[in-house]
């Protein structure tokens, strides 16, 4: 049924630290790698080695430039994937019941056997979290690696989403955002984690941590050298050239 379940106590999700993300795209690759095998239809590529490569991904990393009033501009790397919203509009629009939100942990999933590939759920998502796989003709989206996080065949350290496991800077955190005492909830509280497009009324579970305030930029180390008065032969040459 594509009616949303009552809000679950457990809300599994990600917390993404925009301060530490270096934009290496490792999470993109790890996500694609893991979701090429196992759960659901593999994420396909079209014309992968040709002139117009194109493929299905569940996670994309954008780069934005933020210019403060004073000081140098800052580049912020911005990973974008499904936010497992509490009021997920992608679930209620689905005509077949393929798109659903799990009552037990809040993960938003697609039952690919029931998906007719109409694309309406992708239209309903403000975040561009869903991509229709052209090979399988079904909608693909982040599963929060549901086949890893509960998988007792994996070592415990690996029972987190592939993107979180692979992130070399620890910019991605996985946990229960419904539990105010969890590590991720405390992180959100400490760092002022926020929702994307709150005006859309989707109540995202995933939170983003803002880049930390940087101090004033230090003076460039070479700038004192620019005005050093030339002395000796160089000084004589300098004065001579001024006169010509």
């Amino acid at each position: 049924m594509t009616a949303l379940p009552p809000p679950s106590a457990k809300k599994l999700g990600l917390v993404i630290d925009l301060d530490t993300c270096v934009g290496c795209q490792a999470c993109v690759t790890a996500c694609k790698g893991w979701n090429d095998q196992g759960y659901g239809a593999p994420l396909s590529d079209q014309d992968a080695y040709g002139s117009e490569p194109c493929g299905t991904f569940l996670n994309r990393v954008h780069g934005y430039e933020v210019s403060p009033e004073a000081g140098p501009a800052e580049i912020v790397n911005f990973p974008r994937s499904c936010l497992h919203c509490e009021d997920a509009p992608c679930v209620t629009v689905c005509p077949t019941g393929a798109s659903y939100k799990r009552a037990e942990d809040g993960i938003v999933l697609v039952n690919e056997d029931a998906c007719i590939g109409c694309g309406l759920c992708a239209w309903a998502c403000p975040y561009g979290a869903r991509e229709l796989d052209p090979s399988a003709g079904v909608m693909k989206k982040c599963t929060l690696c549901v086949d890893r996080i509960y998988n007792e065949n994996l070592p415990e350290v690996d029972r987190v989403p592939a993107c979180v496991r692979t992130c070399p800077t620890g910019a991605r955190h996985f946990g229960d955002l419904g539990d105010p005492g969890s590590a991720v909830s405390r992180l959100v509280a400490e760092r002022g984690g926020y929702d994307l497009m709150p005006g859309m009324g989707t109540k995202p579970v995933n939170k983003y941590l803002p880049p930390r305030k940087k101090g004033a930029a230090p003076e460039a180390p070479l700038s004192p050298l620019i005005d050093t008065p030339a002395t000796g032969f160089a000084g004589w040459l300098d004065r001579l050239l001024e006169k010509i």
Partner: protein
Amino acid sequence: MHPAPSVIVFTVLSGAGFGLLAFLALGAVEVYGPAAFLLWGVGYGLTVAGLFVSAFHLGNPSRALRAFTQWRTSWLSREAWASAGALLLLAPVALAAVMGGRLPGHFGLVGAVACLIAVVSTAMIYAQLKTVPRWNHWTTPALFLAFAATSGAILSGQARIAALLCLALGGVLILAFRLGDGRFAAAGQTLTTATGLGQDGRVRQFAPAHTGPNYLTREMIHVVGRRHAMRLRVVAVIFASLLPFLGLLVLPPVLPVMAAVFAVHLLGAFVARWLFFAEAEHVVGLYYGQRQGGPGVRWV
């Protein structure tokens, strides 16, 4: 949004078909025998052809029957029920007319209501989307209803009603264009709300997440044709509304005239429906640098 030909053909044809079926169901024209077969046949033909074409935009058309299951929450599912319901409910009415008889008015009335629900459901699929501010407005169901009613009135030969509906349609079209232009800004979504960055709005796309196209850019970040939007709007209003209105006003309501009027109206309807998609902007475009005057990548 990507103006997919299958969806444009589907919504225009099935809308016109439901309009005609509704007029016939309400007994607007007294036709029996072969004439009834022809007229009801056109109604059923347009509707069924439209529904058939709609399957082409599905990734897995073989599972289309599953779309009947979620009528409690999904407008797409309600559209499936209302469409199938209208066609089934009107079958005895059509059959009776072809046989030269007539069923009590209630039969037709129920069928006409189902046609109305089908058209409104189709419109609500688009109007419900907060992510596409231009569509997320009452003008969307008004537009779909005006098109269905006008097409239905012309096809059923109701010259006077059709002329009035043509004028109303023109008004709704112009209103939808004008109000639609301010909808994205009114929705208040910007790259700052989308990313939470640059609270004073000083944020722009630096590097796109990918340099080639993907499903999102093809389906929702479609910018083709906006250059000619103004000219096409005028074409849509003239062909869908003004020319049919004048034709209905001055020419006698005979079959060849009505056919020609419908052909002109249909052309305008296709242009208007193409614009309906091509001009609609999805908020996900913000992540790709659209709507900020920055060096957004133009995907064609």
